[in-house]
């Protein structure tokens, strides 16, 4: 079967690869690029564990063909921190104990980043509806929602004080 040639950008680095035309972006991220932070919980876009940003827009990597990534910029959980300096959201998830098993955490952080990039001051309801596509079975969402709200407050503070 003919492999498809993909030229894309992943976490600000140019990437070229050959893949099966029916391979999903998630398959390629995990199996070809070793970016295992995006998880497969369902393979049908219902759990959000594979959430990534495509040109800044939140998508499920399991619902994107790798072939579609050509010419686009992909950001995964591995691209959220600045080197080893955690993003405010990541730090806040730790401080607020917003994870238990941790399997859904990368997806939640990527999804929350997409929200705060658009809306730096979301209400609790806005956070809950934005994150409705990310399933967590451990936490009951309470601490996740709080962490996102607290991170948003810190980021607004940082934005004011530089």
């Amino acid at each position, binding site marked *: 079967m003919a492999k498809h040639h993909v030229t894309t950008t992943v976490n600000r680095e140019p990437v070229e690869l050959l893949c099966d035309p029916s391979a999903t972006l998630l398959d390629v991220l995990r199996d070809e690029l070793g970016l295992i932070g995006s*998880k497969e*919980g369902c393979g049908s876009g219902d759990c959000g564990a594979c959430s990534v940003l495509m040109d800044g827009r939140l998508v499920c990597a399991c619902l994107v063909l790798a072939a579609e990534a050509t010419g686009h910029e992909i950001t995964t959980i591995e691209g959220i921190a600045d080197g080893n300096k955690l993003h405010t959201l990541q730090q806040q*998830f730790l401080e607020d104990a917003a994870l238990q098993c941790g399997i859904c955490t990368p997806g939640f952080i990527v999804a929350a980043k997409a929200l705060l990039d658009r809306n730096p001051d979301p209400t609790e309801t806005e956070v809950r*509806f934005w994150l409705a*596509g990310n399933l967590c079975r451990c936490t009951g969402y309470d601490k996740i929602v709080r962490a996102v709200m607290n991170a948003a407050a810190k980021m607004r503070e940082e934005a004011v004080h530089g």
Partner: protein
Amino acid sequence: MGNEQDALNLVNEQVEYKWVGTRPIRPDGADKVTGRATFGADIDLPGMLTGVVIRSPHAHARIISIDTSAAAALPGVLGIVTGADLPELPNEIAAGGEAPINFRSVSENAIARRKALYDGHAVAAVAATSVEIAHEAAALIKVNYEVLPHVINVLDAMAEDAPVLHDDLITKGLEPAPTKASNIAGKVEFAMGDIEKGFAESDVIIERSYTTEAVHQGYIEPHAVVASVAADGMVNIWCSSQGQFMVREFCAKLLGMDIGRIRVTPAEIGGGFGGKTTVYLEPLAVVLAQKSGRPVRMVMTRGEVMRATGPTSGTHVHVKLGAKRDGTFVAGEMVLKYQAGAYPGSPAFLGGMTGFSCYELPNAKAVCWDVVSNRPKCAAYRAPGAPMASFGVESAIDELAQTLGMDPLELRLKNAAKEGTATIYGPKFLKIGYLETLLAAKAHPHWSAPLGPNQGRGIASGFWFNVGGPSSASVHVNEDGSVSVVTGNPDIGGSRASMAIMAAEVLGMDLSKVKPLIGDTGQIAYSFLTGGSRVTFATGMAVCDAAKDVVRQLRTRAAKMWKVTPEDVEWRDGSAFCTKVEEGKERAPLTLAAIAHGAARTGGPISGNVSINAAGAGPGFGTHICDVEVDPETGATRVIRYTAIQDVGRAIHPSYVEGQLQGGAVQGIGWALNEEYVYDANGRLQNTGFLDYRMPVASDLPMIDTVLVEVPNPGHPYGVRGVGEVPIVPPLAAVANAVSHAVGLRLTSLPISPPKLLAAIDGAKAAG
């Protein structure tokens, strides 16, 4: 030795702790927020093959033949396994790591022999060089089935003329033993007092049947395993499970191997809730690795998880509760019929043991039936068996309060179990904190907050034994005075943090210098699995004991350095202090680092290694308050406020304790409102994905308020009680009671899905 005395001392002194009760960042956190943590499906070995499972599309079918020849001939296919490749095990209850287990059932559940017993039952597996080839090969494996009549529901399965799953299944617990096979695997009874007399003395009796549907644990990480077999036959397994030692033992039993030839390395586990306390893929992956000589990775799809791994039982629970006019409980009776799935082993008996245990009930009886049907074999799910029984009992209590015109909280307070209360399963309670949870509920602003139209408030309580059992811990002092704490339990929700906190507390040292690690089966002594809310209690106790042993050694080393006796050395705040006063000898305190640095000269490396069989687990009690709003025109129910109160003994890391309460409550809310296994007429599961299984999403919920009541468990050095199981017990009835009050109708069947609720509302209207 002084475990109990130490515990009493620590509890009674009400010491101010340096680390216990604080909320540090978890030690494994950074990897989990950056995507670096390695879960089961993330393990990648050179030359690794992909294995996929071929599953029965039939609910009940005889396997006439399996033709693997076409698949085997496909280039890239390097191994195929069928039931014939695994040894036949005796049909007997063998000693397991903890509870007795019928390994023949575990083996047949992992891969069918003779018959496929449910939609999704594994019948073969294939390993190939790519996932595409593996799927192509799977399609080429021809299984010739003779489809048999099937039975899905528990009452149908108990019927005289029901299709029988196992022709050698004779009901246990009946006198005389039946001569004919049936789907009724067993009957167990618990009783105390005189039930007939009790009901005769009752002024009011509430009697109803309650039903719940099978629900899945719903962990987000599908089961995943990598197995590799060396040329000398040594087996390495990497997988996400609730116990590396469980996987080792089960694989050894199922494959007829020595335990010593298997090493299991735990991956990070993406949720389990009891569902990862058995093996499914692991033995198949080992056989495929043996056959192919290559490492094999197998990862379930979500559909496979739903169809073939353990949900918990759907149930039919009949409750009869008798009380005096003043609300004093006099008698209680339960008949519990639980689905086991395709093989015996439902948690009906646990429902019978727990259902009444929140209360002082002089006359009680529970009859528990374990019933097989053509569904996946049930697995443990958080307080296995308890939520369904509790749903019945706590609903009946709510109705009793209505009948008596009493406040449901006051009714519970009046009958609450306390120290000395007898349980239906035997022992009397030692120090427990149920009453304290009720008082906390009464004092909580939620309990007295006003309600709006179409809103209702429910309250319910729950109980779980909590368990101890075998655990091991090693505490190693590194050359610079930092410390490694190695245990044998997968960290499913932050237990590394608790282990580190307890070790740092005992050692009096800086928490940041304590590194908790989870050993593989070759690196740490046996530890029973992560489950039953046992890890912070039992493994935590092992860590405390190991750390205490290290303190003892540190005092000995300091004594050597000072040339005094260990009795002259006191350990305080991470340093040794010499208490012996000698003229002209100034002995400055020796820090842990200083002693560690000099360890080579005082006897070599310092480490404490402890294995225990922890006893003294403290029972846990919780009380939940739930407010709902019902749309009377659509039957939609929204949970608008929720408070979970629990006696947690002592919260080592309160944030993760709160998280257990919140997560358990929300799983219970899902169970009460929307989650259920839906089968079609052919016995095929209809909702195999998250789309239609409908677990709660973030927008369905309010914040889950928590109150941690701390009545320390005298059986643990820091007063720990297990906390993970209890929170899923009260929500079913708390939600159902709230809905019942909102609509003025008693709801007895879960889930209270919109079609069901709307039909009830409209039915009541039509009946006038």
